[in-house]
C-alpha cells in the first residue's frame, strides 16, 4: 500500500460511478424522498421506482408484511406513470445528477411494444445514464413472463436495445424465480444488455393462521431483506462464473444488503456494484455508511482498487452446486 485510500470508482461497461453504492428500485422513491437522511450526492447511482406507461394505483393494502429477517411486499408497481415522471420527477433527478450520482430509470411494460415505447421516451431525455428493465416483478399479472422465460426475454431486450440511443446503458434486472438463472442472464446479454442487475424479490407466501388466508391482500408477495442474502450471493456468483465474466458484463447485486460485510460478500462473489433496498427502510444512510467501510475493508485486503476484489472469491475446486449431506 502506498498510503493512499483504495479507490471505489467503478466502470460498469462504460457507466462510470464514483462508488459502487446504489439505491434499489422501489425502495427510494423517485428522487429526494430521503434527502435529509441520506447524502444522495454520495451515491454511485440512483435507481428510480419502476415507471410504467400509465399511472398505476397498485394493489390493495395490506401491501407488506414482515417475516423473520425479511419482508414480503406486493406493492403492484404503484407509480406516477411516464408523463408525470418526465414532467415532475426528472427535473429533480437532473438536479441530483449534477451533484454526482448517475441516474438509472427502471421501467416495466405489459408487452414488448410497451417496453420499447417507454424506453424510447426515457432514452430521448438527457441526463439518463441507464435504463433498467424490470422484467421480474412478481406482483403484477403477467409480470413474470419475460423474466422467467429466456425465449421471451432475449427478443424483448433486443427490441428495447434497438429502440434506444446506443450510448444509453441497458440493464436487465433478473428474477430469482427461475430454474436456471444463467439461462435468463444469457438471454439478457444476447439481447443486448450491457449490465445485469440481480436479484428482484423471491415470490413467497405468508399465512394469517387465525383467519386462514394470506397476510397480504394480493395473496403472494416478493421476499426481500437479509433473509434472501445468501441466496442472492449464490446466484450472483453463479451468473458471474458461468455467464457474466466471459461476456464481460458487470453485475449490480442486491438482496439483503445492510452492512458492509454483506456488500463485501457480493463483491467477492462477482458483483461490481451494489444496491440497497430493504436496508434503506431501516437506515436510509446505509449506502454511504457502506461506502466508507468498504474503503477500510479494501485496505485490509491490500487492494488499492475495488475492481481487484470483484469475483476474487476462491471457491473450493471440487465445489458442486447441489451439495450432498
Amino acid at each position, binding site marked *: 500500500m502506498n498510503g493512499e485510500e483504495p479507490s471505489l470508482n467503478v466502470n460498469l461497461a462504460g457507466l462510470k460511478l464514483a462508488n459502487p453504492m446504489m439505491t434499489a428500485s422501489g425502495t427510494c422513491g423517485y428522487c429526494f424522498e430521503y434527502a435529509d437522511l441520506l*447524502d444522495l450526492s454520495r451515491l454511485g447511482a440512483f435507481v428510480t421506482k419502476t415507471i410504467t406507461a400509465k399511472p398505476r*394505483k397498485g394493489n390493495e393494502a395490506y401491501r407488506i408484511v414482515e417475516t423473520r429477517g*425479511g419482508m414480503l411486499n406486493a406493492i403492484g408497481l404503484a407509480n406516477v406513470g411516464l408523463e408525470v415522471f418526465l414532467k415532475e420527477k426528472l427535473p429533480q433527478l437532473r438536479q441530483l445528477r449534477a451533484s454526482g450520482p448517475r441516474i438509472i430509470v427502471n421501467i416495466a411494460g405489459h408487452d414488448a411494444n410497451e417496453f420499447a415505447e417507454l424506453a424510447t421516451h426515457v432514452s430521448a431525455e438527457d441526463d439518463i445514464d441507464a435504463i433498467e428493465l424490470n422484467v421480474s416483478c412478481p406482483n403484477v399479472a403477467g409480470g413474470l413472463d419475460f423474466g422467467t422465460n429466456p425465449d421471451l426475454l432475449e427478443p424483448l431486450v433486443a427490441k428495447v436495445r434497438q429502440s434506444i440511443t446506443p450510448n444509453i446503458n441497458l440493464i436487465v434486472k433478473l428474477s430469482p424465480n427461475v430454474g436456471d438463472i444463467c439461462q435468463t442472464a444469457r438471454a439478457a446479454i444476447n439481447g443486448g444488455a450491457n449490465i445485469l442487475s440481480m436479484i428482484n424479490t423471491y415470490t413467497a407466501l405468508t399465512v394469517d393462521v387465525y383467519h386462514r388466508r394470506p397476510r397480504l391482500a394480493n395473496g403472494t408477495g416478493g421476499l426481500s431483506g437479509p433473509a434472501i442474502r445468501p441466496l442472492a450471493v449464490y446466484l450472483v456468483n453463479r451468473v458471474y462464473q458461468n455467464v457474466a465474466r466471459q461476456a464481460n458484463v458487470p453485475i449490480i447485486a442486491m438482496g439483503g444488503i445492510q452492512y458492509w460485510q454483506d456488500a463485501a460478500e457480493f463483491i467477492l462473489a462477482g458483483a461490481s456494484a451494489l444496491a440497497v433496498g*430493504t436496508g434503506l427502510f431501516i437506515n436510509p444512510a446505509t449506502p454511504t455508511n457502506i461506502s466508507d467501510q468498504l474503503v477500510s475493508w479494501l485496505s485490509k485486503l491490500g487492494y488499492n482498487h475495488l475492481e481487484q476484489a470483484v469475483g476474487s472469491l476462491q471457491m473450493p475446486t471440487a465445489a458442486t452446486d447441489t451439495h450432498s449431506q
Partner: protein
Amino acid sequence: MGAIMSAMGSLPANVSTIPMRCLVGATVVFNEPICREHFRLRLGLPGRFSPTKPGQFVQLGCRPPGGGQNQEALLGQCIEWDTAIPPKLTQTELCEELALLRRPFSLAGRGDNATGTWIDVIHRVVGTGTQWLAHLAAGDRVDLIGPLGNQFELPDDKSLGLLVGGGVGLPPMFYLAQWMHQAGWDVVGFVGATTRDLLAVTCNSGQEPDPGGLPTHCIEEFSQFNFPAVVTTDDGSQGLMGRVTDGLEPLLRGLSVPRRRQAVVFVCGPQAMMQATAHLAQAYGVDCQVCLEQAMACGMGTCQSCVVKIHDQPGDIGETGDWRYKLACTDGPVFNAQDVAWA
C-alpha cells in the same frame, strides 16, 4: 446536528420545506407499565429534536441500535482481524427473533429542557417488536427516525376539540390535548377500550369515570389540563358500557348548532371505530380529522406500502376515477374524514 447538516448537502432549496427528519440515538428515561400490555416509554434525545406536532410519529428500531453486527462500534473504524481467521461477529439475528423493520409509534407527548428533548410513546405489546420494547429499562439505548408524518390541524375558526381515542389510538390524543391546552381550546376526551384493564390511561384516584357517560375529570392525561373525559368499555367494566361513539353521541346531540360549527372531532383507533366516529361527526355537521394507522415499512414515503383510499380533491392532477391512494406516512397519517374513501 453536524452530521445531519452535512447529510443535507444533496437537498436542493426547493424541497427544504420538508420538516427535518433525522435518525437519532435515544436513551430510555423510563418504560413503565400503564395497564395490561401497555407501556409508557419516555426517550431522552440528545440536543434539540426537530419541532413536532400531535399526529406525527416516529419509527422506532425494535432491536439493539446498530443491528445484530454492532455497527455502531465498527462505524468509521476498521476492525482488526487476521485474514486467516474469519472475523468474529455477533450475529444476533441468528439466535433470536428480532424485528427487522422499524415500527411506527405516535408521539404521546414531548418536552424540552436544557439537555435535550424527551418524547413519550405508549406501546401495546402485540408482536415481536413491541415485545422487545417491553423489556427496555432506564438507560437502555434505542434509535429512531423522526419526526414523521403530518399533523392534526387546529383551524382558527374552531375552539372545541372532541378527542376520541380507542385502544392504541389514544397516545396521539394525549399529545393533542397538551397542544390544545396551549392553544386555548375547550376539550373533551373520549376514551374507549374493550375492557377495564386495557384502558391505557391513568385514572385519578377517587374519580371513577361516570358509568352514565358524563364527562368528568377522571383521566389524568386530560384532567391535568383541566379537560374532562368520558370513558367507555365494551363490557362495561369501567365507565359507560358500549362503544366510544356511544359516549360521543349524547355530547354532540347536546351541542347547539353554532357550537357544533366550532367543534372538531379528532379520532384515532381501530378502522371500524374511526369510520363510525367519522359518520357520527358528519351526521351532526361537525368536522372530523382521522389519524389512519396503516401498516408501514419505511414511514418515509418511499415504499408505497401504507396506502389509504382518499377521494380526489379539486386540483388533483391525473385521472384516477373517484379516489386515489395516498400515503399514510407522508400525506397522513391525519386526513379529513370526509376525504377518506372508507371501505
